[in-house]
C-alpha cells in the first residue's frame, strides 16, 4: 500500500513538474510567437488628426492581438520606385496599390499570393466578381484584397459655378454642356473652367482614357500579352478633338497644362479650377492634405454619351503583402488587412468602431465610394454609419443619384501604366500645339503601347 502511495505521489509530482515545464515552454513559445509587421499608414504630410485616427486603430488592433506588434510607416504608392524599394526590402509588410498596377505586379510575383488566406474569410464569396478580378492573376491566384473602389467623377467648384451664373445643383450632364459651362466659368471668373491632368507621368493618358470611355471607346482588345492596342479608335480621336476645342477654341482650360494627381487636387482646393476629373473618393485627400473648404465642393457623374459601350472608368485600391512575408507574419498581415480595411465593410461593430474613431479625429465620414461587395451589403454598411456622416452629402447628391445608373468599366487590363504612358505625349501635344496631328500622334502611341503589351511591360 505504502509503495502504491509512493508511486502515486511520484506520478503526481512528475506530472505536476511536467505541467509546470510544459506551461513554461508554452508561455515561452507564446512570447516567441510575437510577431512584428510593418504596415502602410498615411501619406506623408497628412494632418495630425488623421495620424491620430490611424494610431488609434493600431492601438486597438494591438490590444485585440497582443502577439502582434504593428509598426506604422508613412506610405504613398509610387510606381516609379516600387521595384527598387521591393528589391531593397524597404516596403512595409502590408501596403496598398491601385487597381491599375495590382495584376501586373501579381503576374511578376512582386506581391504575395494570398489565395488560401482570402478564401478562408467568411465574406470571400460576397466580393463583386469584377472587383475581386482586379486582384486575380491570369492563373487565378488572388494577390491582394480590394478594399476601396471608385468611379471616375466630375469634381466641381460650387462657388465658381455661382460666380459664373451657373446653378451649382445642376452640373453638366453632357459633354456639350460641360464645354459651355467651362467657357462661361473661364470668361466670368478668370479661372480655368475645366482642367485636366497633363503630366508625362501616366496621369495624362489615364484621364484621356477616362474621357474616351465616356464616349464609348476602349484602349485594348483581348488579354495579357496577346491583347491588341486600340488607342487610335474614333472615340479617342473624338475625346482629343474635344480637349483641343476647349483648349484652343474656347480658351477655357486656364494656363496650366501639366497638372498631375496632387497638383490638380491642390489647385482645385485653392479655387483655381471650375471642373476636373478624378476618382470619386478624393474628398478625403482634398480635406486632409489640400485644405479644401467643404462649402465649395461638388461632385457629379462624368457625362456619358448615349451609346452601348459608353461608360465610366473605375478604379480602386488593393491591400497587398510583400512577397517575402511568410508563416506567422503572413497571418498577422492578413489579420491587419481584415481589421483595418475589410471588417468595417461587413461587420456593424467594426463599422461603428472605425467611424467613431474617424469622427473623434474630425475625419470625413461618408465619402462617395463604390461597392466592393454586393450592392445589398454596400447599402447595409452605409446605413450603419448614416448618423455619423459628416461630408456635405447634399452637395454630393448629383453623383450619388447618378452614378449607379452608369455602366462602370475596369481599366485596360494589359500593361496598363505603359499604355497610359504612351498616351501622355499625345495629350501634351494637343494642349501645347494648336496644329497637333491627332491621327498621327495616336498611331505612334498605339505602336508604343502594342510593343509594351507584347513584352509584358
Amino acid at each position, binding site marked *: 500500500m505504502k509503495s502504491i502511495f509512493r508511486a502515486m505521489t511520484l506520478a503526481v509530482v512528475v506530472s505536476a513538474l511536467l505541467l509546470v515545464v510544459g506551461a513554461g515552454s508554452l508561455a515561452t513559445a507564446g512570447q516567441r510567437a510575437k510577431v512584428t509587421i510593418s504596415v502602410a499608414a498615411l501619406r506623408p504630410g497628412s494632418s495630425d488628426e488623421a495620424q491620430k485616427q490611424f494610431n488609434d486603430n493600431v492601438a486597438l488592433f494591438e490590444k485585440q492581438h497582443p502577439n502582434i506588434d504593428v509598426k506604422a510607416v508613412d506610405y504613398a504608392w509610387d*510606381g516609379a520606385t516600387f521595384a527598387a524599394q521591393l*528589391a531593397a526590402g524597404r516596403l512595409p509588410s502590408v501596403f496598398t496599390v491601385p487597381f491599375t498596377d495590382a495584376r*501586373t505586379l501579381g503576374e511578376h510575383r512582386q506581391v504575395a499570393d494570398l489565395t488560401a488566406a482570402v478564401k478562408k474569410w467568411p465574406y470571400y464569396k460576397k466580393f463583386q466578381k469584377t472587383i475581386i478580378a482586379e486582384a486575380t492573376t491570369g492563373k487565378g491566384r488572388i494577390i491582394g484584397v480590394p478594399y476601396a473602389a471608385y468611379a471616375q467623377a466630375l469634381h466641381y467648384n460650387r462657388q465658381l459655378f455661382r460666380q459664373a451664373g451657373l446653378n451649382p445643383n445642376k452640373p453638366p450632364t453632357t459633354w456639350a454642356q460641360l464645354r459651355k459651362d467651362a467657357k462661361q466659368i473661364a470668361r466670368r471668373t478668370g479661372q480655368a473652367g475645366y482642367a485636366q491632368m497633363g503630366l508625362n507621368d501616366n496621369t495624362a493618358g489615364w484621364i484621356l482614357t477616362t474621357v474616351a470611355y465616356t464616349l464609348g471607346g476602349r484602349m485594348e482588345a483581348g488579354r495579357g500579352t496577346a491583347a491588341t492596342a486600340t488607342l487610335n479608335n474614333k472615340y479617342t480621336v473624338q475625346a482629343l478633338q474635344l480637349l483641343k476645342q476647349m483648349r484652343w477654341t474656347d480658351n477655357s482650360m486656364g494656363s496650366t497644362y501639366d497638372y498631375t494627381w496632387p497638383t490638380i487636387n491642390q489647385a482645385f482646393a485653392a479655387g483655381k479650377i471650375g471642373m476636373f476629373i478624378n476618382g470619386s473618393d478624393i474628398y478625403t485627400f482634398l480635406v486632409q492634405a489640400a485644405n479644401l473648404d467643404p462649402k465649395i465642393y461638388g461632385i457629379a457623374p462624368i457625362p456619358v454619351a448615349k451609346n452601348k459601350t459608353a461608360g465610366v472608368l473605375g478604379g480602386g485600391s488593393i491591400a497587398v503583402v510583400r512577397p517575402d512575408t511568410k508563416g506567422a507574419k503572413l497571418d498577422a498581415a492578413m489579420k491587419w488587412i481584415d481589421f483595418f480595411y475589410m471588417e468595417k465593410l461587413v461587420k456593424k461593430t467594426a463599422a461603428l468602431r472605425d467611424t467613431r474613431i474617424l469622427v473623434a479625429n474630425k475625419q470625413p465620414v461618408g465619402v462617395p465610394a463604390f461597392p466592393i461587395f454586393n450592392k445589398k451589403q454596400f447599402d447595409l454598411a452605409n446605413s450603419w454609419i448614416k448618423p455619423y456622416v459628416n461630408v456635405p452629402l447634399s452637395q454630393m447628391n448629383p453623383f450619388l443619384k447618378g452614378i449607379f445608373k452608369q455602366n462602370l468599366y475596369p481599366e485596360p487590363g494589359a500593361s496598363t501604366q505603359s499604355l497610359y504612358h504612351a498616351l501622355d505625349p499625345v495629350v501634351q501635344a494637343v494642349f501645347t500645339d494648336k496644329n497637333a496631328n491627332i491621327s498621327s500622334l495616336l498611331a505612334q502611341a498605339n505602336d508604343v503601347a502594342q510593343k509594351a503589351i507584347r513584352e509584358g511591360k
Partner: protein
Amino acid sequence: MDAVSAAAREVAVEHGNLAARPRWRDRLSPVQWVRSGGLAALLFALPMLLIFTAFSWYPIVRLVVLSFEHTNLVDPPTWAGLDNFREVIHDPLFATAVKNTAYFAGLALLFGYPIPLVMAVLISESRRFRGLYSALAYLPVVIPPVVGVLLWKYVFYEPSSVGLFNTILGWVHLGPYGWLQSPGTAMPALVVEATWANAGTTVIIYLAALLVVDRDLYDAASVDGAGLWRKIWHVTLPQLRGVLLVTLMLQIIATAQVFLEPYLFTSGGPANSTLTVLLLVYQYAFGNSVGVGFGQAAALSLMLAAFLAVFALVFLRATRSWSTT
C-alpha cells in the same frame, strides 16, 4: 622626379635594364617594410579603397553586368546578350532624347559658356565691391538645386499672368506665356535656369585664373594703345585658354548628363520636347512599377558613358596644341 627622368626610367624598365629598377624595394624585409611606414600607408589608404570599391567601382561593374541582363531586381536575372542595347537603339524615343540633349548642350554652350567669362572679366575689372560681386555671382550655386528649380517654376515661369516674367511682360501688354508648356520655349527656359544655377562656379574658376595673368601684359597693351576689348581679346583670352578649354569640356560633359531640370520642370514634356538621355534612362528604370527596364537603363547609361569618354579623349587630343596645361 621630373617628367623626363620618369620617362627615361620607364624606357629602361621596358628594355630590361635592371640597374634602372628601384632595387631598394627588393631589399626590404616585411618587418622593415612595416617599420618604414609601408603598413601605416596601406592602413591610411584602406578606408578610401574600401569606400571607392563599395560605392564607385562595384556599382560600375554591376552596371556593366546589368546591361547584359534581363532583370526586375526581384527574380533571378537572365542573360540578355546585346538585347538591351538593340532595344534602346530601336526605341523611337532614343533619337528624340539624343536630339534634345544635343539641343540643350548647344543652347547651354551658346548662352551658358560666355556669360560666366564676361561676368568674371567684369568683376575682375571692377575697382570696388569685387568681393560682393563675386559673392552675388556665386549665390545661386549655394541655393539647393531643387529649391532653385521650384523657385523658377512657380515664381518666374508660372504660366498665368501672376508669374514674374508674365507680370513684367504684361506691363508692355505681352503674354502671358506658358514658358514650360510650349515645345518651342520649354528647352530654352530650362537652359536659362541651368545657366543661372551653375554659372557661379565657373565665374569663381575664371576669377582665380585671372589672378595669375601677369598685370605687366595689360600695362604693355595699354602702352600700345589697346582699349578694354582689345586687352580682353589679345591678353585675357589667350592667357585663360587652358582654363577655357577645360571648362568647355566639363560643360559639354555636364550638359550631356542633364537630368534635374527636365525631370523637375517638365518630366520630359510637353510631348517629349525636353526628354533628355538621362531622363530616358530614368524612365526605363523607374517608368514601370514592375521594374523590367533596368537592363535597358544600364545599357543606355553605358552608351552615354562610352560616348563621353571617347569625346573627352578626342577633345583633349584635338586641343592639345592650344592648351597651356
